[in-house]
């Protein structure tokens, strides 16, 4: 009986208090400031990372295993992608899964740990001080722990599990593993130096022994393989998993459609998890079986594309806005990315200059192509709504409020889309050819695309400070229809 809601408790009439037959009022996402703080941090990191590549195009035009590439990659991944995705999740997950965020306070603390952690990590990667990478990485990991705990407790409240909730839960598992793997790699590279002289210090002997055990365990694996396995955990397990899972909720919502086959949707999530588990293991062990698991992952994405196409065919809104176009471009880019994954997983593929550059393109296309296009598309949905809701929701019915589309420029969206896409293509082509000039031009165009996004975001944010409502006219006064 303890599990029952108050609605189904036998109580004396005199003690009855009418209970709502629904979620409590106010069951909702957190305040607007929190997701916006994450998102703006992400946009600054995207601008900084793109500028870095323009200034040092060699990072993309030469082999990637060096401190600067690792630093800029973490700037993109942690600063841009993680910031935006985490901020958006605090907003979207409660709404999409019809529940309430467990703790906004924990989320604010996570933002502080995240900010300090990723900035410190990127800087220390750049100067290649792995001991400090480990320290800042621990700060970041603590923040990720808060994030995972907060989201897991939020998921426990979900009244009805669906494919999106499963994908979010899986993503939380993979991000935890990603952070663990990353810290383990850092420990393996520096624990002997950094623990020198600490072994005899009181109270830290167990910690030092633990660090050395982890370092000993990680020494069994090839360093580059461990790094690639770690990157796939984050790239596929967290980002791609969320893109796939959340889009099953958001794309039908924004195109006025429905999931056409729950079996296909569930199958894509299951296969993606299986493919990633196998890929992580086989990449780490340099096993020839990695091709088989890459194909499982590609199969999962093919099923996802199939279901997404069916959703779009059934949509009741014929016109696709630029936000959706950005997102669908990311989905289309999964095709060349999957093809590259299969090629790079081929057993016995030699590592030479050309295949090394293909690995660069694989990472760049995945990060700046697929993930960034998907995120920008969703940002063009999320930011206008956040700003609009914060500024105008109380004015509805009391004044004429602008529509979401009034908050940004569709023309800038289009210009940004084409320059970003052209820059991506140019940078990928130039990377294959090891052309620094081409990479600079390509990343410059990507930077222009980012600038248009920044201008549009600025236009949206001005509404927070300057309301643009108009008084209701007689013609626009709502007239209720009696029943």
């Amino acid at each position: 009986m303890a599990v029952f809601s108050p609605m189904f408790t036998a109580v004396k009439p005199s003690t009855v208090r009418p209970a709502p037959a629904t979620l409590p009022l106010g069951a909702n996402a957190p305040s607007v400031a929190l997701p916006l703080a994450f998102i703006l941090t992400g946009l600054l990191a995207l601008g900084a990372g793109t500028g870095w590549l323009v200034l040092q195009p060699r990072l993309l035009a030469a082999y990637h295993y060096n401190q600067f590439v690792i630093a800029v990659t973490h700037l993109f991944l942690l600063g841009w992608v993680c910031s935006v995705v985490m901020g958006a999740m605090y907003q979207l997950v409660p709404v999409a899964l019809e529940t309430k965020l467990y703790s906004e306070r924990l989320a604010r603390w996570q933002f502080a740990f995240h900010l300090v952690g990723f900035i410190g990590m990127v800087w220390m990667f750049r100067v290649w001080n792995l001991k400090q990478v480990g320290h800042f990485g621990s700060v970041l990991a603590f923040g990720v722990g808060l994030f995972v705990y907060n989201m897991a407790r939020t998921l426990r409240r979900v009244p009805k599990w669906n494919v999106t909730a499963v994908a979010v839960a899986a993503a939380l598992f993979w991000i935890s593993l990603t952070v663990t793997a990353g810290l383990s790699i850092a420990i393996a590279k520096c624990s002997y130096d950094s623990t020198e002289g600490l072994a005899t210090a009181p109270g830290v002997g167990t910690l030092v022994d633990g660090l050395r055990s982890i370092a000993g365990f990680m020494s069994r694996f090839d360093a580059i393989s461990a790094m690639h396995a770690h990157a796939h955990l984050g790239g596929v397990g967290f980002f791609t998993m969320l893109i796939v899972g959340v889009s099953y909720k958001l794309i039908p919502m924004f195109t006025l459609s429905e999931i056409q086959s729950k079996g296909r949707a569930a199958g894509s999530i299951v296969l993606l998890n299986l493919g990633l588990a196998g890929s992580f293991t086989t990449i780490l062990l340099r096993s020839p079986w990695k091709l088989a698991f890459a194909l499982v992952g590609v199969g999962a994405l093919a099923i996802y594309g199939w279901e997404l196409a069916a959703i779009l065919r059934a949509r009741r809104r014929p016109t696709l806005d630029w936000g959706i176009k950005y997102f669908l471009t990311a989905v289309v880019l999964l095709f060349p990315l999957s093809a590259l994954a299969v090629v790079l997983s081929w057993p016995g593929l030699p590592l030479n200059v050309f295949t090394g550059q293909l690995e660069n393109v694989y990472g760049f296309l995945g990060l700046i192509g697929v993930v960034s296009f998907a995120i920008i598309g969703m940002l063009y949905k999320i930011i206008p709504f956040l700003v609009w809701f914060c500024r105008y929701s109380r004015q509805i019915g009391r004044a004429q409020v602008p529509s979401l589309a009034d908050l940004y420029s569709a023309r800038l969206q289009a210009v940004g889309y084409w320059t970003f896409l052209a820059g991506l293509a140019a940078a990928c082509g130039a990377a294959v050819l090891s052309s620094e000039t081409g990479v600079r031009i390509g990343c410059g165009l990507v930077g222009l695309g980012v600038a248009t996004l920044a201008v549009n975001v600025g236009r949206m944010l001005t509404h927070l400070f300057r309301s643009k409502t108009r008084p209701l006219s007689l013609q626009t006064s709502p007239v209720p229809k009696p029943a």
Partner: protein
Amino acid sequence: MNGRPLIESERRKILPLPAETQCPANGTRSAVDKSVTVDVREDIRQGREPFSKIMNAAAALQNDEQLLVIVPFEPVPLVRALEKQGFRHTSHSVAAGEWEVRFTRQTMASPLDAAPAAASLGSRRNSGFTPMKMVEVDARGLEPPQPLIKILETLAGLSEGGQLNARTDRRPMHLYAQLEERGFTAETLEQPDGSFLTHVHRR
């Protein structure tokens, strides 16, 4: 029997019930007395929450049908909730641990009677019946935040004492705080077709 009408369990003992059909809302529909029976005793024994099952059955009732709920105790809060949605009830303790609660729609349009048909409105008017000040908003098929705008704009023109029923494709998560701020409260129920019906009234 002391002349009182037979209640459902007594009739079951005396008369073989005619063919019963499963209705979409997890109840059993009887052709004899136009009632839908929802027995939730097993749900409660199994620790399952039966509330939505009953509310779905109530929402799916035809105008001339009754809802018979069989429960192990008198579900006072449920009665209050359905009364707020325009139902009357009678309840009887049949045996130890068995109550039968029968719900019938009141003669006026109930909040869950969501059929917006103008024809039925016309017939009520013609019969001299005074309808409840109920406004229907169908916000299905709209991209966010249009449902929110449509509901709140309609709410702004709602007369004193008026109530509003809104149908949406999704549970209107962003609506609740706005309603609270404007002095309204709401209950949302998922409908058998997957849409949501939100009943809004003043606090």
